[in-house]
């Protein structure tokens, strides 16, 4: 394969504190050189003038649905959507059918992913079947290749079991990713509990249902010393508890989704099931708190919680519709639109949220532009205006509340190990 020379790009690499015009040379799938000016006549040239070149984006929270729900998404279609969204790697949540709670399922997912355009880091279940009762085979799954454990979709509600799992995670150096939801406070709820749920006659999920488990989880992380990562935080109070735990030296990180920093519970007003997700869309005050946290460092990562559902599943009334929205192909544009173009965060911070920190949380290579390392690179245009059409996306599902939105900023190319996984 010919070498590839990426010229004239604005290279943003928070790990190196770099935000400057640079050229990159890619050879044999690896980053061979990074300099102010590289000349290499035998190379293919990619002109990145007016584009941002960053270490590959890693989405910590994706539901690829395979095995089991291939009508909604497959490893193949989900990773294609990831590539189109500028992601070079995704962490695949274990709530498939069967659940990824054994080395066998982990190996199956990795085998499917080997043919896909981007890297897949399987997340193993904490408990068998994510049923919250018995520990899953965490050590065997670690050997097979998981990079984190989670019972996502539900919390590990038994505090003793969570403690045991954290003890394993400490020894195996895995992060435990918890979905914070008090099942009793949240029971039956379909949207945020507030003025809109009352108005619409829909059962609410109070903010406290998320905040109480955040507090508990951080206390257990403190007790065990293990690494805790909190998925899709959505309330001001939840973030407050994370700030306090971080000040207290607890090894806790957290992520926020684009839909939670973009939309409020008012999006449910016409009973549009595309605005139904768990955790639910919260209030304008919560959105403001999430944006603050994304800017000041309380939040570590932007993750999509990409949750595909087939048209048949989602084409029903609000109460019966399943929770979840897709997000891989809109995440970068929403972050640019809502955080960067509003001057809330810099491009360095944006790349930190999409790449540097996710790599650190998963403990994987990447997250920086290191000479000699595999060339996983995300190239995007922060200015390009485009209209998102869910039906034309790479994901097999179309359940997005952003369908038809005109956004500012878009991925232009995604390179995984030096190959174009996606090119505009």
């Amino acid at each position, binding site marked *: 394969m010919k070498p590839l020379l990426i010229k004239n790009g604005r290279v943003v690499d928070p790990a190196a504190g770099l935000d400057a015009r640079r050229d990159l040379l890619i050879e044999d799938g690896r980053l061979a050189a990074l300099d102010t000016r590289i000349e290499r006549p035998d190379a293919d040239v990619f002109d990145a003038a007016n584009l941002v070149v960053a270490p590959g984006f890693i989405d910590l929270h994706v539901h690829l649905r395979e095995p089991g729900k291939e009508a909604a998404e497959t490893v193949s279609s989900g990773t294609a959507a990831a590539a189109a969204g500028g992601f070079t790697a995704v962490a695949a949540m274990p709530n498939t059918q069967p659940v990824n709670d054994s080395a066998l399922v982990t190996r199956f997912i990795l085998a499917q992913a080997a043919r896909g355009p981007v890297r897949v880091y399987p997340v193993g279940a904490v408990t068998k079947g994510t049923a919250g009762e018995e520990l899953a085979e965490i050590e065997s799954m670690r050997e097979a290749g998981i990079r984190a454990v989670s019972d996502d979709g539900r919390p590990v509600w038994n505090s003793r079991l969570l403690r045991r799992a954290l003890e394993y995670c400490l020894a195996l150096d895995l992060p435990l990713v918890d979905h914070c939801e008090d099942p009793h406070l949240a*029971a039956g709820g379909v949207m945020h509990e507030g*003025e809109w749920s*009352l108005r*619409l006659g829909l059962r609410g999920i109070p903010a406290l249902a998320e905040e109480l488990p955040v507090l508990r989880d951080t206390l257990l992380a403190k007790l065990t010393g293990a690494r805790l990562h909190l998925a899709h935080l959505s309330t001001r109070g939840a973030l407050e508890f994370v700030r306090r735990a971080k000040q207290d030296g607890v090894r806790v990180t957290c992520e926020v989704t684009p839909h939670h920093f973009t939309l409020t519970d008012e999006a449910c007003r016409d009973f549009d*099931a595309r605005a139904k997700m768990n955790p639910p869309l919260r209030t304008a005050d919560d959105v403001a708190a999430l944006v603050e946290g994304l800017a000041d460092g309380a939040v570590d990562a932007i993750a999509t919680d990409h949750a595909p559902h087939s048209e*048949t599943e989602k084409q029903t*009334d*609000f*109460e019966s519709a399943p929770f979840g929205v897709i997000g891989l192909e809109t995440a970068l544009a929403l972050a640019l639109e809502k955080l960067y173009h509003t001057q809330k965060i810099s491009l360095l911070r944006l790349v930190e949220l999409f790449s540097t920190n996710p790599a650190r949380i998963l403990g994987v290579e990447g997250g920086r532009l290191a000479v000699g390392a595999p060339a996983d690179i995300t190239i995007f245009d922060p200015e390009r205006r485009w209209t998102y059409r869910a039906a034309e996306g790479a994901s097999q599902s179309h359940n997005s509340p952003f369908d038809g939105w005109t956004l500012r900023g878009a991925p232009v190319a995604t390179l995984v190990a030096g190959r174009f996984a996606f090119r505009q």
Partner: protein
Amino acid sequence: MPPPKTLARLSQRHLLGVEPLSAEDIELVLATAQKYQTRTATETRPVPRLELLRGKTLTLAFFEPSTRTRVSFEMAAQRLGMNTVNLALEASSVQKGESLLDTVKTLAAMRPNALVIRHAASGVPHFLARHTDVPILNAGDGQHEHPTQALLDALTIRDHKGTLGGLKVAILGDLLHSRVARSNIHLLAKFGTRIALAGPPPLVPKAFERLAPSVAVCARIEEALAEADVVMMLRVQLERQREPLFASPAEYARHYCLTPSRLAHAKPDAIVMHPGPFLRGIDIAGEVADSPRSVIPHQVENGVAVRMALLELLVGGAG
């Protein structure tokens, strides 16, 4: 406030709720209903038999059992000369696993002139309205709205009090699970009526006050009743409770049943309303339900008139 100007037609194609209606829409429905009334506060009239909507079809799709609302819609349709098709869907295709959307597409393919929908889930009529051109009349969706009930209640209040504004209306009982309460609050608030709510604390969240500025959540039922012109009782929705929100029906009755002594806190000429079916001795004492203060039978009669008005406005205009 000055009387709103009269409209010729509704601003909405569907009747999904009271919330999207304007005060002018509501005035139009009430004015249209008045000509169909068989009884006002002062006189009784013969039952009208009209040909206005002859040859048109009304399909009633009840995904949740109901006798009163369904029969009221059927009578309204028949008095206007319409044919009715009655589908008790809780017993048919829905249980065979057909999707909601497929069921309604099938119904719409039969080309009715209007579709009356009742469903146990909030928002179903709104979902269906996005997938059909047939005018939809919401006959109660989950805990969201029951617009025809609020409109017939408004007609009843106006028959007895001459106005909707300048009154105090107490709405008592299980507010949280009540679509009737939500529709009534929206309607009365559009006329500036003072609305006082009370009931078991978990069933009357303070957030109700955010629905409209004239809404007050009262800590005690007596406070809500004080100087009220209208007392609306709500049914205890035992079947809607997925969790125990009060100890027992007896405990509820002891503290929230509308007894003569509680009613004494309201104005001497206050009327008592209930959307029915009421639980005698639990939400309302027999003496109160049977007293001349109770306008419950009048509500039932107005129900037919209001539904006739809505059919005229939503189907008649469609040509």
